[in-house]
């Protein structure tokens, strides 16, 4: 097929869902809208009734909502990591999956940012604590608190990711403008800023792609390190460890890559992208998951060993609670099973890696396990807070509202990705076309 007809076919395929709406979109949008409405109702109830709708106790003050925050920040990580590293290394197979990874990162991060706000109970007051400006009380945010570093890091990461996606979208918006009409045409024309595809503009695009990739990678590492420091800057045993930052980062990559696999599998099926997101992509990302899983095992075991070798009585009790006391130990066994024991041997089998459905279900399992890992890291050390032993306080148990918010978070991310895919090309047209013009060495096939 000639490049001209190939490029036209790429435009037709990848803009099909953007410009035409199948019936299933409305059904999906209605279901997700309903879940979001229930979530908003839950938030209103929590504001009116108060934080007692959560299962928090005198000792366990950070629980499911903060677990959700850490989990979704983690999911947001691999998106940009995959995109940036694959761009910097000129990995050819990156082309169809970079944007969906970046978009997942944006919506996961936005969802994560909701949870500290919800957790605060009085959402509107958080601005006094975070925003770097004195409003009325002559009290400024305390930059010595890790809770101030956190919004600074997340704001940087979110802004960087949005701009990263936007720069890559410019050429695709110009194509979408040419293929659309009416309001959409005006919207795409405005957003594309009149991008024309001159040689200079393509050169700038190529340079910008590398520059932004290189700039966003340190932010990606810093964000989850700072999220880990939310815990490790406290003097609580099992939280107060230097290991927590890299452990959180590798855990974030483990869950994030699994998140990207889930999105890839769903988009491939729903948008009929089998010709673009192929089994080879799942094969490659499966290999990546294998490598990341080994890194994760190293940090998981290090956390365990250092916990025991510290000979700290409280830390030993925390590990006893995690390993031997029901129901906490069941959660820990489920975590180990779904993040390490089951996926690792399966990822060694090429046929499994090349099977999108299997990769989808394994990745769902990994993310269930990673959520449990975050929960155990956050909740169990608080359950044994010393020296304030509130013996009359019952064990922490999540309440229905916490389950609801956890479920709604998934719907928020799904809605974000769905709406993005409906309005803008979720597979980068320009990158796919670039792949058609070059061979693996970056030269024209006939040059």
């Amino acid at each position: 097929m000639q490049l001209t007809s190939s490029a036209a076919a790429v435009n037709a395929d990848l803009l099909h869902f953007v410009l035409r709406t199948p019936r299933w979109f409305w059904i999906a949008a209605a279901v997700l809208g309903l879940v979001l409405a229930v979530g908003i109702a839950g938030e209103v109830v929590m504001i009116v009734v108060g934080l007692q709708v959560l299962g928090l106790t005198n000792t366990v003050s950070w629980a499911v909502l903060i677990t959700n925050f850490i989990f979704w920040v983690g999911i947001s990580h691999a998106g940009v990591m995959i995109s940036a590293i694959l761009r910097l290394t000129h990995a050819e197979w990156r082309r169809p999956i970079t944007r969906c990874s970046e978009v997942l990162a944006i919506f996961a991060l936005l969802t994560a940012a909701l949870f500290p706000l919800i957790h605060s109970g009085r959402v509107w007051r958080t601005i006094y604590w975070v925003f770097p400006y004195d409003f009325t009380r002559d009290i400024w945010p305390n930059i010595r608190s890790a809770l101030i570093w956190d919004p600074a890091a997340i704001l940087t990461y979110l802004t960087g990711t949005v701009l990263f996606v936007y720069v890559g979208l410019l050429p695709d918006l110009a194509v979408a403008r040419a293929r659309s009409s009416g309001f959409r045409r005006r919207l795409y024309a405005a957003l594309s800023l009149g991008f024309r595809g001159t040689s200079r503009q393509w050169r700038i695009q190529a340079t910008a792609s590398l520059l932004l990739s290189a700039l966003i990678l340190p932010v990606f590492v810093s964000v989850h390190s700072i999220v880990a420091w939310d815990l490790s800057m406290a003097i609580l045993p099992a939280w107060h460890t230097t290991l927590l930052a890299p452990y959180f980062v590798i855990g974030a990559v483990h869950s994030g890559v699994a998140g990207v696999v889930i999105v890839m599998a769903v988009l491939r099926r729903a948008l009929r992208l089998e010709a673009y997101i192929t089994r080879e992509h799942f094969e490659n990302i499966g290999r990546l998951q294998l490598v990341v899983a080994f890194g994760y095992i190293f940090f998981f075991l290090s956390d365990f060993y250092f916990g025991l070798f510290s000979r700290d009585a409280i830390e030993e009790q925390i590990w006893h609670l995690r390993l031997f006391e029901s129901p906490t130990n069941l959660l820990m066994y489920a975590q180990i099973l779904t993040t390490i024991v089951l996926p690792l041997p399966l990822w060694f089998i090429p046929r499994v890696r090349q099977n999108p459905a299997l990769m989808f279900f394994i990745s769902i399992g990994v993310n269930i396990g990673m959520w449990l890992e975050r929960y155990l890291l956050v909740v169990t050390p608080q359950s044994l807070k010393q020296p304030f032993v509130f013996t009359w306080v019952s064990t922490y148990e999540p309440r229905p509202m916490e389950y609801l918010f956890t479920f709604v978070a998934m719907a928020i991310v799904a809605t974000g990705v769905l709406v993005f895919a409906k309005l803008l090309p979720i597979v980068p047209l320009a990158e796919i076309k670039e792949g058609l013009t070059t061979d693996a060495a970056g030269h024209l096939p006939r040059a």
Partner: protein
Amino acid sequence: MLLGIFREPEALRGAMLALRAAAFGGRDLTVLSSVPYPEGTFGEEAEPHRLHVFPFVGAACGFAVGLLLTIGTQLSNPLVTGGKPLLSIPPMLNILFEATLLGAIIFTVAGVIFESRLPDVSGLPRDPRIEEGMLGLAVRASAPTRQGEAEQLMREHGAIDVVQC
């Protein structure tokens, strides 16, 4: 202005070389494509740009803003903790790191827009065939004789269409 439409990159490259041999300057010739071809595919001149400078300027600005913010907030709310100095450098480093990178990223994107000459007011012609994978060669030629010469050269080298814009 003339816009030649080409199907093959080799044809456009041939036309480009012929036009330059006929004394059309590099600034008079602009390749338009919806496909990012490798640099120099069409024999066009590589225009220098300064995109690499933008992240450094942005980083410096971000660092300065971060410094102002961190020092300003600590001095505006002089909360002495444990007898330690008021200006605490280790936590400042976290904010400074983020502010520096945020500045670098924002300036890089501003640089992309500036160096790409966006929003586009160049008056370069549009043709929907370019968005569908064909290649365009815009030739600036004001004199009718030069226009005729350019059109002839482009057609000789495989332009499937030449339109006056």
